[in-house]
């Protein structure tokens, strides 16, 4: 409750929530606002924004409605962002938790393994994975997850390493709780805030990565996503600026919003942490 109040005082975070809320609403309402398929030709190609009041954001070279694309694309972009993050967090938390909690040889082994993934540039790895397993929404999502978990693993490991030494964890050992139970009930709940903050940033990064993949022609051709729209529009940058401008703006707003929320959570968490340490 108190947290909620503190959060609401963080204007940036509230703004982020509002923007994200609008984007989610748009994604959900897309089938109502723009019924049918966003790939359909609905008007003259290359209408400028506002030129025709029915197509406020203009149309692309095949006469498809940009606004419809953005509304439908919101779903795909958010979906990829959220699902890939969930998968990455799942992998990262499992590996980080085991390494951090058990330490020693387990830690060594898992961290070396993590390093293998970390040392290859994430985007390059994602490109390879998507290309190799042929671009579709599943391979894209998984590829993004595969390259983004090491960060989570490291973070969780560090958290677990320090939490493991905390007295309340020691107390849990002393009263005879089992290792897995301690991880789940004692340590993890206390590491959740930084995980959430990181995850929120990862959603943002995932949306960016998806768009970059699309830009390289490694997007899912059956899904209208923002990144795909920019990728498709980039060669027409000079003839039809609006084709890439609006999806670019949408990405920027979404990422910005998620970031602001993440930072809000971060701020929320920090005084809390300080209070706990004192």
């Amino acid at each position, binding site marked *: 409750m108190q947290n909620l109040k503190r959060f609401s005082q963080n204007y940036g975070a509230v703004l982020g929530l509002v923007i994200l809320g609008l984007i989610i609403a748009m994604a959900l309402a897309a089938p109502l606002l723009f019924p049918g398929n966003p790939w359909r030709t609905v008007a003259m190609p290359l209408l400028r924004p506002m030129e025709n009041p029915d197509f406020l954001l203009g149309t692309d070279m095949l006469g498809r409605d940009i606004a419809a694309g953005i509304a439908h694309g919101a779903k795909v972009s958010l979906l990829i962002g959220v699902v890939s993050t969930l998968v990455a967090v799942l992998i990262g938390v499992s590996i980080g938790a085991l390494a951090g909690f058990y330490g020693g040889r387990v830690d060594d082994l898992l961290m070396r393994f993590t*390093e*293998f993934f970390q*040392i290859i540039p994430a*985007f390059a790895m994602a*490109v390879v994975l998507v*290309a*190799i397993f042929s671009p579709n929404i599943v391979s894209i999502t998984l590829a993004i997850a595969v390259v983004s978990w090491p960060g989570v693993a490291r973070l969780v490991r560090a958290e677990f390493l320090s939490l493991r030494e905390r007295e309340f964890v020691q107390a849990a050992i002393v009263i005879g709780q089992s290792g897995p139970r301690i991880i789940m009930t004692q340590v993890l709940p206390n590491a959740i805030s930084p995980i959430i903050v990181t995850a929120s940033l990862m959603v943002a990064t995932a949306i960016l990565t998806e768009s970059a993949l699309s830009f*390289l022609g490694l997007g899912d051709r059956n899904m209208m996503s923002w990144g795909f729209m920019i990728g498709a529009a980039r060669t027409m940058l000079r003839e039809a600026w609006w084709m890439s401008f609006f999806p670019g703006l949408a990405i920027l707003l979404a990422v910005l919003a998620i*970031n602001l929320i993440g930072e809000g959570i971060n701020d929320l968490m920090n005084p809390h942490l300080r209070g706990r340490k004192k």
Partner: protein
Amino acid sequence: MLSFTLQRIGKAVVVIIGVIILNFLLIKLAPGDPAAILAGEAGSGDPQYLENLRAQFGLDRPVPVQLWNYLSGVLTGDLGFSYRNQVPVLSLILERLPATLLLTGAAFAFSLATGVLFGVMAARYRGSALDSIITTLALVFYATPLFWIALMSVLLFSINLGWLPPFDMETIGAGYTGWRRALDIAHHLILPAVTLGLFYTAVYTRLTRASMLEVMGLDFVKTARAKGVPNKRIIRRHVLRNAVLPVFTFASMQAGQLVGGAILTETVFAWPGIGRLMFDALMQRDYPVLLGVFLVTAIVVVIVNFIADLLYRIVDPRIGIA
């Protein structure tokens, strides 16, 4: 120091071998037979021709044998032979590596310098309009797709204003040498390096700001104030050094990521580096080249981390002996 170096080298070798094996297996997992693709490109595909190609590239042997051959090749400095370019992989990569090192190095230096500068300014004037402007800009650049920035900056600075060349690494055919050439390359470097670096500028700005604020709250800063040290000097002598260390460490760990970003930048700016080489190799299923690029990147990253660690040890007395 020697034992540290040895230890790090030992660790690095393990990591790099791990990376090789991981990549190798990944690529073996991939559907797509390089020989078939090569044959396809040449327009022919009778089985005998395919068999010849496979035998020539050693693709007909079992995977563990291939892996072993590759590994032992790598140990002797032989990264294999490019199926497609008919050139030893190592020479192909070495030819392209300097361009990427230059690009990513410049982007790295640019982002670190500007990031730290802006971060310090924002933290120093925390809560002021300047702070708001810097943090907002950092957020915006953090959230803007790299390629979008690249395209827009070409539009603005090359086409509309005509200040900066939009692609290539130097003026081809101009035949510049010495200083003239260096200047020419620097001129071509500005756009790609800045666009590649902007995202990291944003990252480092935020990191530096947070780190500065944290250090500012530490006890020894209070001690310095109690000594009567002027504010400027506190920031410079006490806060900055302590705050920048973690930023540097983070940056060195991130250095490899720049190579990922270079794929996009090199594409847009026609920069002849290994990012683009990697992408082409991938598209053509030229796996030895792909593996080689990954390997070389990993080695570069390991070296960068090592140098960073070494510097860290020199700058931070606490780690020196531990």
